[in-house]
């Protein structure tokens, strides 16, 4: 019955093109809600009974395609549904100014693609058959492509969209090759379940690398990430929130699904995933620190968080391989919880930044400042998201990182020597990533929202209307709940972890610890509240004045000029890591003879070192080489006829001398 309703909902998406602009949004919202309801019924069935649900879907290539929902798929469906719901609620306010500028067909196409992104992401996690999976993956890439190039009037957007589409197709080629290799070598089912036959009899490492590259391009592991920092800023904010929040996790889903089919020989795979994820986390957040475009910062930060999820998964796999149950259970648990956490706080951050963009029409944070006075609610939600993403207690980011740390420290004693060195490197890496995230988000929050306005673009900003804040409230509520009472989510996480490692006694041991964390967080908030009351009482009896910030005699003219800029904040970090973050400063120095300095210009440009060396430079070399060949393309038909004549002569000669 539910399947029929689901199929009807999918078919109804085409009705969007027939509606007028006024009703398109509401119809789309209704369809989203319908799909969410139907899939949630399946999810609750699966999670309540901790079983796998198999339903026949549609006839496909002769057989009936069935959908299989196990706890892993159910978890991803929950995350997808929640994030898309907040996205579509946010979209109403965000798309308001575009409604009049775009035509009816363009808006209908946008909502259609948003629906199909939702549907394809849901289907990606529940379809196991190989060919159907690849087709759905393609639909997901295509629909997100059309969503990214929404603002087609900007030329840059289309270039970025095409770049994104090409990289997605490179990924799908790797996936196809991987599936085909497994099928050809074993003649088992062409699906995920058929992979287990391959992995049982062959060395799993090389096929896993193929899958990892294919899924890693979607997830955004370094060095496969270069599409992310371009596509997320170019897309409208509700799309960026959904893409960053869930779509890149589809890559993680794929990797986990492949991992479920590998029985043993896991140490090398775990080590590989761990090393790539540590590099991804460190390099991702380092690149985030030097950006000036607010959405690019968030895009690189997504890369860093994918790194943290990968660290959890890699450690979990190493734990299974080395028979360290604490590491296996807590590593996977932390990684999986971080998938949920990241979708929450990253979409919250994107929605806040989108609201700022809507009000100020700029994404350059060097032109913002002092927005907390104009948009207080957005600022507080951004602060909540920034605190959560830096992994600070008492919010949810800390809980997932704490689980990973617990797994590492609990297994230090029983692990072998080399595993100990690996564990030391991973907790050092996690600590540095956490510190860098604090660095990045203090910079972003304080430059955007605090201080004085750095340009006139802030003058007309005002708080966004309440419907745009509803998703922020929903997400903020969940962030606080997961941070303060994490134990209620542990049952959900344990159902997924048990698929990887059956020993759950560690999970039982972690519950009192999490309760203690809740207690400590509660004490922290109570002390804060008491201090607030104490201060209010003390200051009632005193004089509290307001005055200008102490300027040490430097203030005059423009107060905004004396503030710290984002570039200066990042500067001492840039000096340390200049090889990775390519920051180029263009300015002319003052020479000694210049007594009265002339006007100067100062430009700072950043570029992605991986994109430069892996894509731009080889691309330019190939283009240079092709330009040499382009000499033959003269445009004159006489030359082309000469080429045809020469070709005939060549064929004649070769046949004459019996060479072909």
């Amino acid at each position, binding site marked *: 019955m539910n399947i029929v309703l689901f199929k009807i909902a999918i078919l109804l998406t085409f009705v969007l093109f027939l509606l007028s602009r006024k009703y398109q949004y509401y119809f789309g919202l209704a369809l989203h809600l319908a799909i969410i309801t139907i899939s949630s019924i399946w999810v609750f069935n699966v999670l309540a009974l901790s079983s796998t649900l198999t339903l026949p879907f549609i006839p496909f290539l002769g057989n009936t395609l069935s959908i299989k929902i196990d706890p892993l798929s159910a978890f991803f469906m929950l995350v997808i549904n929640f994030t898309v719901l907040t996205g579509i609620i946010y979209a109403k306010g965000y798309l308001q100014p575009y409604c009049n500028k775009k035509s009816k067909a363009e808006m209908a196409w946008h909502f259609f693609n948003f629906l199909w992104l939702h549907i394809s992401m849901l289907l990606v996690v529940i379809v196991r058959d190989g060919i159907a999976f690849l087709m759905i993956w393609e639909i997901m890439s295509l629909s997100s492509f059309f969503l990214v190039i929404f603002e087609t009037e900007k030329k840059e957007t289309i270039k970025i969209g095409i770049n994104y589409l090409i990289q997605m197709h490179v990924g799908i080629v790797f996936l196809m090759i991987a599936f085909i290799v497994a099928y050809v070598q074993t003649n088992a089912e062409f699906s995920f379940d058929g992979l287990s036959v391959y992995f049982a009899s062959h060395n799993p490492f090389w096929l896993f690398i193929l899958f990892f590259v294919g899924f890693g391009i979607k997830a955004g592991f370094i060095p496969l990430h270069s599409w992310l920092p371009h596509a997320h800023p170019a897309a409208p904010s509700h799309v960026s929130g959904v893409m960053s929040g869930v779509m890149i996790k589809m890559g993680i889903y794929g990797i986990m699904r492949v991992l479920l089919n590998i029985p043993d020989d896991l140490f090398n795979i775990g080590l590989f995933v761990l090393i790539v994820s540590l590099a991804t986390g460190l390099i991702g957040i380092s690149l985030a620190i030097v950006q000036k475009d607010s959405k690019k910062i968030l895009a690189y930060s997504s890369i860093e968080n994918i790194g943290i999820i990968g660290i959890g998964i890699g450690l979990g796999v190493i734990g299974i391989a080395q028979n360290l149950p604490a590491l296996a259970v807590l590593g996977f648990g932390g990684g999986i919880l971080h998938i949920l956490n990241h979708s929450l706080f990253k979409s919250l951050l994107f929605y806040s930044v989108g609201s700022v963009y809507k009000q100020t029409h700029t994404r350059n944070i060097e032109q913002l400042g002092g927005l907390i006075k104009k948009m207080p609610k957005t600022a507080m939600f951004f602060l909540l998201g920034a605190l959560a993403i830096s992994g600070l207690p008492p919010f949810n980011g800390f809980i997932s990182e704490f689980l990973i740390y617990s797994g590492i420290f609990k297994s230090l004693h029983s692990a072998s020597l080399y595993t100990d060195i690996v564990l030391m490197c991973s907790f050092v890496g996690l600590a540095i990533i956490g510190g860098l995230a604090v*660095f990045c988000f203090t910079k972003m929050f304080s430059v955007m929202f605090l201080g004085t306005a750095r340009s006139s673009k802030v003058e007309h900003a005002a708080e966004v209307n309440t419907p745009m804040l509803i998703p922020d409230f929903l997400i903020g509520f969940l962030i606080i709940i997961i941070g303060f009472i994490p134990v209620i989510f542990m049952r959900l996480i344990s159902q997924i972890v048990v698929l990887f490692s059956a020993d759950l006694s560690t999970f039982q041991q972690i519950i009192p610890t999490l309760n*203690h964390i809740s207690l400590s967080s509660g004490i922290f908030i109570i002390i804060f509240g008491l201090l607030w009351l104490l201060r209010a009482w003390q200051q009632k009896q005193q004089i509290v004045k307001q005055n*200008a910030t102490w300027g040490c005699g430097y203030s005059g003219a423009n107060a905004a000029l004396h503030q710290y800029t984002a570039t200066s904040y990042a500067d001492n970090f840039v000096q340390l890591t200049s090889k990775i973050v390519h920051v180029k400063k263009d300015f002319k120095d003052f020479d000694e003879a210049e007594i009265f300095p002339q006007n100067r210009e100062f430009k700072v440009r950043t570029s992605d070192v991986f994109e430069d060396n892996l894509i731009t430079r080889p691309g330019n070399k190939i283009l240079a080489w092709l330009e040499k060949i382009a000499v033959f393309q003269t445009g004159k038909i006489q030359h082309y006829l000469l080429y045809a004549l020469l070709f005939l002569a060549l064929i004649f000669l070769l046949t004459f001398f019996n060479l072909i």
Partner: protein
Amino acid sequence: MVSLVLILISSLFFVGIIVKVKAKIAARKMPPILQPVYDVIRLFKKGAVYSLTTSVIFKIAPLIYFASALVATLFIPIGSFGAFLSFEGDFVFFAYLMGMGKFMMIVAAMDTGSGFEGMGANRESFYSMLVEPAFFILMGSVALFTNNISFHGLFLNFNVDTNLSYIIGIASIYVLVFITMVENSRMPVDDPKTHLELTMVHEVMVLDNSGFDLALIHVASWLKFSIFGALISNFIIQSSWAVHWQIAAFFGIQVAFSFAVGMLEAFRARNKMEKNPQWILMLSAISVVIFLTVLIITQKIILN
């Protein structure tokens, strides 16, 4: 509960001893030991001036900073006295809770819209990022050595019986002393007496705070000194000693630590600002050596 009370008492005279030692070495007249306490009481009686540029963030940041320092104190045991709060992995919570306090102080400093405070905020976030690995590697080594991962369990089982464990104790104390100096932005990372905005870290971040807020910030910095002093004393105090010896040893170690900090501040010059990152990294390097030592002791590295 006892450890909380002891740490609070020792925090009252910690900074006083440092100032006294510095004054004596500089041949100046020594202020009384409780002078910082008198200063804070005077601040509690004053009103406040808030900057027009700041927002609600500036008002809540000192409260969160002090709350984080106070809750962090609840985790520290002393010898055989348990901590008020203790669970497995609590040193991770401890480190990140202090990070929460630092985050709010950094954004509050940027909130004032002053270039000086921005400079201090930037350096504070950079140096605290660099010193995190040192603390974690140190705690990881001691956790590996004692097979326990809560502060209480770690120090309860930290027995200096073999020769090698002396090294861990001595090297850990050395690293912890310098971690304290980095966390509180003292020498050789930053000179609290210099008051030149271009060279300060912590002092410049609190330029615009006044009254109740400034008092809370001062008390929080005393607490941080005292917390690290208590951590250092844990490496020396054995839980098998008698109770009165433990308390006496605790106060003795706190006095010795504050004396050592005073000497360090009086005789050591400040690092050049650009040399600070590498100096702080040296602490993590020494922590790695401690980790390797523990690997040798626990027989994972087999040497003959």
